[in-house]
């Protein structure tokens, strides 16, 4: 079965639609949304509805720090993120806010762990920026595969034989073997707000049968999305960020 892994959607409707279409064309049968459905972008309602619709049909979803902040306040966010939080909260209906509040922090299914940040302390929203952090998360997950986001860059961490963990920076659209005798932690990149200088949306596919992962970059009309952010009177830098992918 092919699972589509989408993280850090950030209320970017055009990017979410582009990635869903792209993954469906490539045979995705199951969807996992790895948190941060909202925040930064101008379409929180539409994006929450799309995710809720997929969840009703069996998709997996976990909560991200931006989703939690809608209910819990800006405590878990940096200043920049807090700027758009109020706008997002006002834009969401009570039922959609309740949906975001109800999301689990971590989901384990068979030999896969789904989590927004790290499996060792999902509620602390730590960033995986070192091999050691990846290793802690892999070991706490206890599963062969851990899939997450939070860090807006695509990285695949893997266990070596001697118990160390090493990073691999995948090349878009190039399948990577992820055999199940090792343990893997994939950070699938951000659908709604890429930050590596490439404005194209990022997501990944996992093929459980062939034990392969493919990371993708999907072009969408990010200029139009940036214009929406400006029209919504969200901070200007959020629009510029989408235009430049930084």
């Amino acid at each position, binding site marked *: 079965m092919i699972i589509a892994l989408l993280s850090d959607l950030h209320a970017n409707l055009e990017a979410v639609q582009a990635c869903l279409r792209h993954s469906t064309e490539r045979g995705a049968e199951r969807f996992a949304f790895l948190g941060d459905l909202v925040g930064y972008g101008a379409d929180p309602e539409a994006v929450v509805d799309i995710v809720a619709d997929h969840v009703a049909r069996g998709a997996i979803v976990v909560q991200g720090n931006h989703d939690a902040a809608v209910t819990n306040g800006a405590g878990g966010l940096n200043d920049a993120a807090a700027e758009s939080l109020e706008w997002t909260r006002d834009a969401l209906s009570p039922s959609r806010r309740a949906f975001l509040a109800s999301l689990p922090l971590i989901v384990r299914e068979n030999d896969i762990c789904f989590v927004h940040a790290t499996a060792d302390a999902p509620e602390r929203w730590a960033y995986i920026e070192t091999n050691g952090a990846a290793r802690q998360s892999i070991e706490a997950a206890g599963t062969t595969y851990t899939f997450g986001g939070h860090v807006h860059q695509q990285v695949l961490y893997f266990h070596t*034989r001697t118990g160390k963990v090493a990073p*691999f920076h995948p090349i878009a659209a190039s399948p*990577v073997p992820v055999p199940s005798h090792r343990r893997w932690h994939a950070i699938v990149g951000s659908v709604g707000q890429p930050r590596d200088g490439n404005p194209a949306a990022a997501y990944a596919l996992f093929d459980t049968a062939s034990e392969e992962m493919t990371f993708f970059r999907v072009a969408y009309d990010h200029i139009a999305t940036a214009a929406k952010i400006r029209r919504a009177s969200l901070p200007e830098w959020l629009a510029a960020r989408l235009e430049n992918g930084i």
Partner: protein
Amino acid sequence: MADRVAPGSVIDGFVVGRHLHSGAMGNIFEVTRPGLDTPMIMKVPRMGPNEPSEGMISFETEATIVPALSSPHLPHFIAAGDLARTPYLVVEWIDGMSLEEALGSGPFPPLEAARVGAALADALHSLHEQEAIHLDLKPANIILKKDGTVALIDFGFAHHTRFPDLLAEETRFGAGSKAYVSPEQIQGTREDPRSDLFSLGVILYEMVTGRFPFGEPDADVRNRLWLDPAPPAVLVPETPPWLQEIILRCLEPRAERRYQSAAHVAFDLRNPEQVVLTARARKSRRLGIMQHARRFLHARRELDVRLRQGSVPAGRPPIIMVAVDTAHPDDERQGAIQRATQQILSLSQEFRVVCVSVIRSVPLMDGALPSETASGIHFEHLVRLRHWVEPLRMPVQRISLHAIESENPAEALLEFANRNHVDLIVLGAPGPTRPDRSWWRSVASTVTANAQCSVHVVRVAERGTARP
């Protein structure tokens, strides 16, 4: 499972035959499969609680990378077993003699070493073009095929850009074979294709002199960071200066001072007259003790810095071949081709330019004047090429000039481009109204249709033609 692999057993339809080799990584058997005529071998890793894990990691590395490769210089992948249950790898058997075996009867004459070295550089170029680095290049892993080309085998230490590097954090056995391993590998870098060019330098040195530049395999491997090897011509006086230049340039401890691509090494080994000779070519003794001490201290400082920062390998500098018609130096196309070349060169400092003029075969004759002799005519065209290239103001190391004799310019250009791994061909477009230059038309279209690389066809706007 793997322990039960023995002559006579059948695995996924492959009938195991003769046991061929037993190495640190595992066993190799001949295999056959009903319905398949190809001669094949099966590699099976050693497994079990007492086996070192490096054998398994190397096996996994090879089983990941080999299926992604495709070239006459590399083993053709046939099948692989499931790693967790039935690990095996079946590849096509490459017929030939290993370079190790060939070197058993002593070093090669210098020109034969250059020929084999060029074939080896071709194989490396093909590997590097596929985003892989061998990292364990040594004579035992090099097969000399009957057609004069070379194939590489054993990818247990290799690196491929598109796959996780399973050996990346395994510094214990991340480096290749001691006599051949590059300085970067000792420093923990596995992402630099120029590491293979260092090993190629060691192999060239060994082929010419019968010795290792940095001593026997049990020497301290870090010596190549500072040790100045004895110049090949000191050991084998008939070593031509150009070959010593190539070998010592491959052996530079700092990757940025080496050749930057295998294609360039192959080019120089095949075009000795184009090798720019530096102090390396003239070296007739090793550095003195004081200079050695300085290099040693410098290397130690640098190793510290490298280990903290890591190194950044450069991309492969592309080779641009410009076809220049030196028989018609005043043709208006010349200026246009020159301007186009200049524009291309302005894009990057990295390009290498190869200017080629195809001249008609000169009958061997002894004229009274130099301009009437074969070598005199040849030289005259080289002078015109040098004149043509002069306005480009390129450093001499990045330019080479060739006058090729042939009755078929298109074929000669194509053969030269393919043999020298050219990345871009620049040549003039045929004009529509010049019957006397009709050969331009056939040359440009034949080259464009049959080149293995991109072709830039430079067109000159026709003057005086009325446009609607």
